[in-house]
């Protein structure tokens, strides 16, 4: 038997995590859904406009992503609670299974559940606004791009959930801001060292221009879509593996 990954055990662990957190999740889902429903219905009723329906869809997507990041940040709460951590860490489940279960709940399961909620909200909004014909157009490229971006970026918050012991969401956001500032300062400093304060114009046909275009058009998107999330999941795995009380 593979001691690191056993599908039966993974299934049991998924069931345990869903069951133990179900009541809290249900309350949160109900509260958010109710609030969004009221806001959307009121806006749609008093502004019977196609534009409003589209804007409300965007609001739903923002809440979908933010809600997912907060949910992801709380996925290892049991591990960080002083009086619960022993139970989580001594449960006969490997770090791989704990990570996979956390990812599965906060990424595919969340996307399906929250995605269905967005569909329901969009349907009600367009119905109340009297523009039901807009509904199919609400699920355009922007909608699916949001889901793709969420599935990549939620790995950042999964790492934050495994790393920080409290206020995981806020600390992850702070860490992201600090990393962004460091990258900006490093890039700016490097640019200044290379080109000085002169008004250097990068020609796309020049070697430097072609390299920059290749980096920004090919390398960075590839790193973002295919490397970032797996890399963060691997780091999260080691965080779980090395976690002590």
């Amino acid at each position, binding site marked *: 038997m593979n*001691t690191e990954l*056993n599908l039966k*055990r993974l299934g*049991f*662990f998924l*069931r*345990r995590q869903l*069951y*133990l957190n179900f*009541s809290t999740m249900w309350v949160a889902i109900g509260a958010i859904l109710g609030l969004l429903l009221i806001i959307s219905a009121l806006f749609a009723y008093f502004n019977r406009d196609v534009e409003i329906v589209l804007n409300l869809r965007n609001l739903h997507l923002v809440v979908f992503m933010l809600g997912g990041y907060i949910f992801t940040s709380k996925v290892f709460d049991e591990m960080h*609670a*002083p*009086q*619960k*951590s*022993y*139970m989580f*860490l*001594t*449960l*006969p*489940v*490997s*770090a791989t*299974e704990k990570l996979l279960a956390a990812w599965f709940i906060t990424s595919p399961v969340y996307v399906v559940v929250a995605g269905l909620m967005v569909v329901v909200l969009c349907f009600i909004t367009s119905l109340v606004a009297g523009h039901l014909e807009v509904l199919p157009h609400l699920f355009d490229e922007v909608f699916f791009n949001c889901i793709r971006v969420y599935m990549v970026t939620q790995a950042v918050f999964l790492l934050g959930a495994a790393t920080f012991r409290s206020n995981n969401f806020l600390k992850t956001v702070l860490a992201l801001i600090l990393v962004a500032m460091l990258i900006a300062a490093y890039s700016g400093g490097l640019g200044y060292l290379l080109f000085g304060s002169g008004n250097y114009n990068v020609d796309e046909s020049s070697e430097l221009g072609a390299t920059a275009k290749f980096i920004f058009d090919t390398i960075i998107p590839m790193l973002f879509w295919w490397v970032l999330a797996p890399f963060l999941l691997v780091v999260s795995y080691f965080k779980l*593996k*090395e976690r*002590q*009380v």
Partner: protein
Amino acid sequence: MIALKDIHFRYKKNKPLFENLNLTLEPGFIYGLLGKNGAGKSSLLKHISGLLYPDSGQCTVFGFDASARKPAMLEDIYMIPEEFNLPPISLSNYVKTNGVFYSKFSNNQLQAYLAEFELDESAKLSTLSYGQKKKFLIAFGLATNARLLILDEPTNGLDIPSKSQFRKIMAASLDEEKIIIISTHQVRDLENLIDNVVVLEKGNIVFNRNMGEISEKLAFEYNLSGVPAEEILYAEDMHGRKAGIVKNIAGHDARVDLELLFNGIVKNAAGINEHFANYKYEY
């Protein structure tokens, strides 16, 4: 078998807790882990259960490196800490969601233990008192049939009948494959239960002896008047009299007073250990 070899450990920014700690625990025994507050008892238990990693040295549990926390090893460990927080679900749902991870889990045994502790399986954990929750965890832990059971202050919060039920259940559950470690301050609760006494003092194992050996080599007197001074290993005031530990020169098994023994070891571990090393029968 559990083996801690040359363990060094310190909490961040603190002075070292364990320096070169060595300890071997054999199956088939109940170990009483005693020590003052801050002696390192809970840290030692956390090392054994893989919740803390040593800075150097190795802790192996049934051949597994404890810090690897392999599921195969964790299936054979059940830990009941002093303080815990249980989810607000029924006992039966807790068992359904957690029992499946332990391949040797016995529902029949659980039912028997719950009946012994007078716990209703349909009750919600959030409605139980601290003592009842502890009894449930003890019942669940025993039903997992884990080969290593770690109990940190198990009798805290238990009422008097529950303490005797606890002793009865623990004694009955021991077999030649199991190791039970009980860490406690309430030494009287462990009398007639433990097989070995392990005393931890300032991060060091200062005493590790079998109860049979202790009762054979030491005697516990509650009035030391008339006892020659050279036979007294430790003395303390008790209700206006001198009580203490004396050399059991006759070699007849004596009743072990764990509280006196612990106090004696804390004050004079070297003298008591020396007596064990130099012990000779004098008929």
